[in-house]
Structure formats: structure tokens, C-alpha cells
């Protein structure tokens, strides 16, 4: 373990234990310190209430390092459900100039005529989700995936951490706007991109193993048929032997596929909901005989226009292909 990780673990442990009512005396640059823990925390961490706390593996007290069970057990100090927090920013500067030109610069509408109808100040909820993503297969891949979405458009955005925003204060927000499925779909896309290398590696390995398996069993079949020719075996026996080898190959192939099967999982760990002012730009879209009004948003935190979400794949899009019912689609989904 590097010293940096050592320090990071130590400050995490101290903050966590103190936030739960513990008293920690662990001076900087000391390998160990002392902790007085509430009974419940001590029980969860499986250590005495008055305990030594140390970075070095030890049979006594609470060991804080990557190889100890501390991180595993510390999970028990948090609720099993997703931790959430609701914040609100009361006021933000909203762009006052005309939006025609910024919309024209930011968006393209290849199959519709679109014009800006007007702008209005609205309150929009932005949801900052954090998912623990994992894929189990012959190996395991894990990562922490963060996605931020506009609860109105479901589009994925890139916004600064609201926990560091001094203008944000705790608030009560309507629960109805929380859409875990939409967030999961967005997180899945991000996780898929992050895990691409892992999946490619597994594909290569499975391909290699599959080839090896097939060549082995085909060679067995060849061996068997040579032997049958030499020994003039009865056709029934020959057929039975061939069938047995083929069945075995089938079984082993299935087993191999099962071994490599990807078992993805996304677990929402935390959600920060932020209610903030935004500028809604109302657009009028006309396509063939149809027409529709829709909103795009100018984000007061990033000071940019936000993308819309593709109605099929969920990707954030600025080049918008409208479906017949004016569902916004990305180029790929629009051409399907």
C-alpha cells in the first residue's frame, strides 16, 4: 500500500468513525492510534469499543488497510438503501439575450424545421446518481459510475458536484421525479463504455478456449473414427461413440459459455437531487404535416444548452432526428 492510499484510508476511517459518534485519537504520521466507539459501531466493525486503531495488520484492535476487513464491515455503518440528499439553489444568473442563435449553433434538426418560440425561467431538478457497476464473468470488473440527468428531458449531462456548491442548501423535493430506471439505463451506457476493454479481453479468451475445445473434441472424433476403421468396429458402436463425443462437446461448450457469461449489475449507491433555476427554451418543430412544441434547457450552472436524450438509446444528442411522433432520436436510431 502506498503512503497516499494509507493517508486516504486513515482520513476516511477517522471521518467515518467520528461521524458515527466515535472518538478517535490518531495523530498524523503515527501508524496507530486509539478509538472509543459507540457499541453499535464496534459490533458492526467486530472490534472492542475501546480499541487500538492501526494501519498495520494486527490481531488486536481495528486494522485499517486495504487488505483488512474494515472496508467490508464499514459497509454496515451505512444504510442498505441508496443514500440520498435533496438540495436547492435559490437563484442563479439566467441568460437574458435572445436564444435563436445559440440554439441554431448548438442543435441541428436534419428532418424538421424548428424555430424558437420563447424563453421562460423554470425550476429544474438535476439528479446526480452514483452506481456501483460490476460485471461478473470468468473474471470480475468493477467501477463506480456517476451519471447526472435532467429529470425533465432524461438527458445525461456533465455538471459539477453539487456537494461542493456553496449556494446549494438542503431542501424537500417531490419524490415523484425520481426515475431510477432512466438513470440505470444511462449508467449502463457509461458502464458499458468503461468495461469495453474488459469485455474485449474476455471475448478473445472465450474465442481461444472455444477453438481449443472444438479442436480437441474434433481430434477425438478423428481418433475414434481411425480406431473404428482399424478395428472394423460395428456401425452401431461407432455411431454411439461419435454421438457421445458430440454430446460431450456440446456440454463442455455450454459450460464454457456459462463460464464466460457476463452477469452485469448496477447498484445505486447515492443520489443527490438538486433543484436549480434553468432557462427553458420553447421550440416549435414542423415535419411533414405534423408539428410539435418542445423545450430545451439552458443550464445556468454550465452556462450552456443541454442536449436532449435519444428516445431509444438515451444518448445525449444535439443533432436531432424526429420520429413520426416527434420523439427525438440520435442519427443511428433515426436511421433504423
Amino acid at each position, binding site marked *: 500500500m502506498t503512503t497516499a*492510499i494509507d493517508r*486516504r*484510508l486513515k482520513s*476516511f476511517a477517522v471521518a*467515518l468513525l467520528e*461521524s458515527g459518534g466515535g472518538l478517535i485519537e490518531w495523530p498524523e504520521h503515527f501508524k496507530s492510534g486509539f478509538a472509543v466507539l459507540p457499541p453499535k459501531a464496534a459490533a458492526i466493525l467486530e472490534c472492542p469499543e475501546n480499541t487500538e486503531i492501526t494501519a498495520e*495488520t494486527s490481531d488486536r484492535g481495528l486494522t485499517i*488497510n*486495504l*487488505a483488512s*476487513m474494515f*472496508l*467490508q464491515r464499514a*459497509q454496515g455503518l*451505512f444504510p442498505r*438503501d*441508496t*443514500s*440520498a440528499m435533496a438540495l436547492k439553489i435559490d437563484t442563479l444568473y439566467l441568460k437574458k439575450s435572445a436564444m435563436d442563435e445559440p440554439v441554431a449553433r448548438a442543435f441541428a434538426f436534419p428532418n424538421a424545421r424548428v424555430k424558437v418560440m420563447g424563453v421562460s425561467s423554470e425550476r429544474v431538478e438535476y439528479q446526480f446518481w452514483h452506481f456501483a457497476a460490476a*460485471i*461478473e464473468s470468468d*473474471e470480475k470488473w468493477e467501477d*463506480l459510475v456517476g451519471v447526472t440527468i435532467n429529470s425533465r428531458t432524461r438527458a445525461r449531462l456533465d455538471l459539477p458536484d453539487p456537494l461542493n456548491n456553496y449556494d446549494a442548501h438542503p431542501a424537500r423535493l417531490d419524490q415523484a421525479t*425520481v426515475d431510477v430506471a*432512466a438513470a*440505470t*439505463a444511462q*449508467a*449502463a*451506457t457509461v458502464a*458499458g463504455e468503461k468495461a*469495453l476493454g474488459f*469485455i474485449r479481453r*474476455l*471475448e478473445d479468451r*472465450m474465442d481461444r*478456449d472455444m477453438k*481449443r*475445445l472444438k*479442436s*480437441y*473434441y474434433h*481430434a*477425438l472424433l478423428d*481418433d475414434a473414427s481411425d480406431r473404428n476403421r482399424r478395428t472394423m468396429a460395428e456401425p452401431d458402436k461407432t455411431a454411439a461413440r461419435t454421438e457421445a463425443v458430440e454430446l460431450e462437446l456440446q456440454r*463442455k461448450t455450454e*459450460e464454457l*459459455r*456459462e463460464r*464466460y*457469461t*457476463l452477469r*452485469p*449489475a*448496477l*447498484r445505486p*449507491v*447515492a*443520489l443527490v437531487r438538486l433543484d436549480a433555476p434553468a432557462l427553458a427554451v420553447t421550440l416549435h418543430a414542423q415535419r411533414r404535416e405534423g408539428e410539435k412544441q418542445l423545450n430545451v434547457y439552458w443550464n445556468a450552472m454550465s452556462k450552456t444548452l443541454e442536449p436532449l436524450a435519444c428516445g431509444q*438509446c438515451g444518448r445525449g444528442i444535439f443533432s436531432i432526428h424526429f420520429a413520426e411522433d416527434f420523439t427525438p432520436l440520435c442519427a443511428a436510431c433515426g436511421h433504423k
Partner: protein
Amino acid sequence: MLWSNAFAATKKSVGKASKTPGGIPIAEPQPEPFSLVYCSDPEMIRLRLELEKLKLLRGFDELLCLDGLHAVEQLPHQIETVRKVLRYFHGRVLLADEVGLGKTIEAALLLREYILRSMVKRVLILVPSPLTGQWRDELSGKFALECDLAASGWTSHDWADRQRVIASLSLAKSRRHFELCSAEPWDLVIVDEAHHCKNRSTRNWQLVNALKRRHIFLLTATPVQNNLIELYNLLTLLEPGHLKTETDFKKNFVTRGNPRDPRNRRVLRDLLSQVMVRNTRSLVNIKLPRRYAQTFALAPTENEALLYRHLDSYLRWRCQPLHAKAIGDNTDGTAEDTDTTVDESAVLASIADGVVQSVETSGVDGLTHAAGAAKWTALAELWQHPPDDLPTLNRLQINAILMAAGSHPLALRPALERLGLQDHRAGPLLELARGLHQSAKETQLLELLGKNRSEKTLVFANFRATLDHLAGLLERHGIRFTLFTGGQSQLEKELAIDQFKHDVPVMLCSDSGGEGFNLQFCNTLINFDLPWNPMRIEQRIGRVHRIGQTRDVFVFNLCTRGSLEEKILAVLNDKLRMFELVVGEIGSILGNTEKGEDFESLVLDLWLKSRSADDLETAFSNLGDSLIEAQGQYLKTRELDEALFGEDFA
């Protein structure tokens, strides 16, 4: 977008299975219940996210399995093996460490690591029958992994409901269970003593081959016992086709006309190194000092001898059906044992003769005067008839009583008291035992301790009553000591060790004591009594003869002349030179004999089958011969493995 469809299934119910472009199936994620818990302090969210990030920092360099172990001595080569298997072998490996280097510990560490990382849930551990209990106890006690022992009455539900199962190979391959356990999907299968699966035509091999598993560990110190095809067969269980077909393997790697001689060694070793880890003593630099053993077979006192003789007769009288079964079960083909018809009256007569004879030849003290003699004669009369009114003692009971007798008359007393409650005819035995406060072994023990005052000495005894008695004896003779038993708390144990190390010259120790503690400061060990299981004897010696011991180790065995323990020692020490073998080798040698892995049961069988002292003598002599043969076989195998593998696989 590669597999985001799979995640999207939480939103839409997608029925058909999806695949990556490379053809890997994607399982549909299981939707989990979702709810939010609100907090008002941003720090809690930050801490939770930090926890998740820190968990991700744990690569395979940071082993999780090492924390929370109890009394496990982790050796560097074992840790390295665990890392290697995790990183490079993807959970399919042949662990072929030399005997005594801790394959079982490596497998258990790997199992724990996989479980802690949630990479494995359902585990099947296949082991030879006598080792099932040991595996369960070790996994539970040392690795905090609870497992179920498969039982013959298990149904398909039992197999399906259990997450971690230990099954004997013989049970799992039985007609009833073969289908049941091979129908279950296992995340990990561990096969201990995997050389039992060296032959493709056996049900052992077929069972392991049929098991549905994602990961598999095969454990054996001797992957090649007779010829190279055995190795091929084992590796085919791991990765079919890794060594291509048997014909290809023979053509490429086996010298024509000599199936034990490999050719193209470099290529073969390269291929093996992809699926096999083999640590050797020289490679991991484990050099232990020599150990020397001396056995004292001590003449029993008159009354002791009388007690043992009558006890022997009484037990034989009480377990006649077992005697018949032991003879009936016999398969070793010796002339006398193949005669499965039991002449019950002859057995009874021989028992009664034994009693009368012992009365006639017994000595001078209280129990041998006229009244005592009359009592034994009356008993001999009684023992002419089968004990119709009494339940037969089972093997476990007989075993416990005989072992207690081998320890000390005081250890025998509680068992005799129980027998006395059941059967008044056992009363005289109890009376006799109550009159005995000292056995022949005490004098020798005191002498050894007296000679060796400057050295720390560990004294082992199986029974608590014996230990208590020895404690009193040492006290009376002014020898300072400390007591260490399995029943003590961790703190008491630590205190006892500390005292032994710094203050007192002797530690009285039970079998369950001492594991995991460093006692290398002591190099002398006295076995006041002797476990029948050689592996347990090894465990005792292993407390001092381990890494860190720099001086030669001396083992003194005390036993009573004519006892079963003397016969066991004669076989293990005089014939096999067990005390000079490398740790673990005795297990491999016993494994080469039929039923040898369950040596304790084998000894009891010999006792049950024999009708006289001569019978028993002959039986032990035959056992010794078969063990010498097994040792020869083991040595040949070891040479073959050394020649084949060298030191290239660690």
C-alpha cells in the same frame, strides 16, 4: 452500448438473451428493490462514495482472505500462490505443492478470497472420506467458512439448497448421488487428493468431469504416480484440450515404451506451467532441522496389566457383533480373515480363557487375593455367554475406551463408570481402575523431565483427566509447568504460552492446543499418550518442528508394553521411521494403502478382527509390511514427480 441492453432490462422486460459482438452471452440483471434514505449531511454521501472508491482500489495484490484468520500460519509461498492463481489462472489450477507445504491452506485461502470478493457462492469440496471432518473443522475454525457435510440421505433439494458442501468422493460418486451433485451448478469445485481422479475410466474422474463448475482447484502432491497419462487425465479435467488428445499427448510428450519418461520436456513444462503451481521445499527455502524419536515401552504394574487384560476381554465380549462385522467386512485377503463364518462359542471360550489365565497368573495385591480371584473366575463364567441383555458397544465407544486405556487408568475411569451403570459386570473393572493411581509411564516422564531441566518441554496428552493427573504429579515433584488446553480462552492461551516461554520449563498440552502459536523456542516433546491417527501425531510434532525451528527436535513416546499404542508405534516408528519423515509424507504413504487414510479406523478393525494377542501381533505385522510397500510406492512416485517437474512451476 455493448451490454447496456442488459442493464436496460431493469427498465424493459427483455425476454430474449443478448450477446456481445464477440458472442459472450449476457445474463439478464436481476432487478433489485430500490428505496432512498435521505440524509441532511453531505459528508455522509461523500463518505459513502469514498467507501465505494476505496473498495475498488483493492486489486489482487491486496488479499482480503488474510484478515480474520484464526491460527493459520501464512507462509510467503502460500500467499504468492494465492495471488498467482487469482491473477493468471482464473480459478482453474492444479495445486501440486510438495507434501507438507500447505496445499490445503492455499486452497482455503483462495476459497475465502473468492467468497469475500463475491466471485464464488456455491462451492463443492470433494475429499477422501476420512478427511471430510477435518476439512469442515479447519474451514470453520481457521477460515471462518461454514460448510455442510453431505450425507448419504441427501435428496436433490439438499444438494440444491446448500451453498458450501464438503462431500466425500465415495459418497458423491455413488449411484444415488452422482446425478444429484452433477446436476447442480457450482461456482467452484475443489478436489483434494486429486490423484484419486488420475484414471479416466474411474467414477472419480467421471464425476469431476461431469460436474458443472466455473472454477476448479485440483490438489495433489503427486500428480503422476505411475505414468504420464495420469497427469494428462488430471489436466483434461482442468482444461480439456490443453494437452490436446491423448494420442497427441503420447506422441509429443511420452517416450515410446516408457510411459513414465517425458520427452519434449521444455514444451511440456511450458504447457504445465499455464495450469499448475508446484512449490518445492528447496524452492521456497524451507529447511527444517532433523527430528529424533525414542519410544519407551514400559512394563505395566501388576494391576495395570490386570486391568488392561480384563478390559480387553470385557470389550471383546461386549462387541461380538462388531467383531463379526469386522471379519465380514475384511477384504484384505489374508487366509484367516477370509473365513467369514464366526464361531461365536470359540470366541467366547477364548475370552473366558483369557480371564481365567489372567487370574491364575496375576500378582499379589488386594485384588488378586482369593476373593478377587473368585470374582474374576465368576466373571469368566458369565462371559461364556453372549451379552443378550446389553446393547452392543459401537465402534466409537470401543475406540474411545481403548484410547483412554492407552492414556492412563484415570482417563479410563469415566468410561468405566458409564459402563458400570449399564452393566454390573463391569463393576470389578471400575474397582480395579479406581485402585490405580499411577501408571508405569509417570516414572519415565519424571525421569525425562529431570534429565532435561534446562530445556523447554512440551508434554502432550489426549485426555483431560490425564492432563489433570500429570499436573498434580508435577506439582508434587516441584516441577513448574503451565497448562494449555483447547477449552481455554484466547487470553488464557496467550498467558500460558508466555509463561512457558519465559518462566516455566514444562507445558502440559492437549491435542487441540497449540495450533497457530509459535513454540519454536521449545525443541523437546513428550507424547505421554498417543493418538491412533498418525496425522494427529504429526500435528503434535508440528507445533515445534516448523519454520523457525533452528535446533534438532527430540520426540519421546511413552507407551505401556503390550498395549495397542506400542503396536502402533512399532509400525509407524520402527517400520516406517515416521518420525524422521518430512511433515506430510506419512499422509501420502497412508494414502497409498487401502483404507490407510483412515488409519485410526484401521487399527480398530485389526483389534476387532483379532481373537488373541498373537492374532493382533500378526495383523500389525502385516499392516507394517503393507505400509512399507506403500512407502516404496510413494518414494517411486516422488522421484518421478521430481524428475518430471523439477522446480519450474512455482
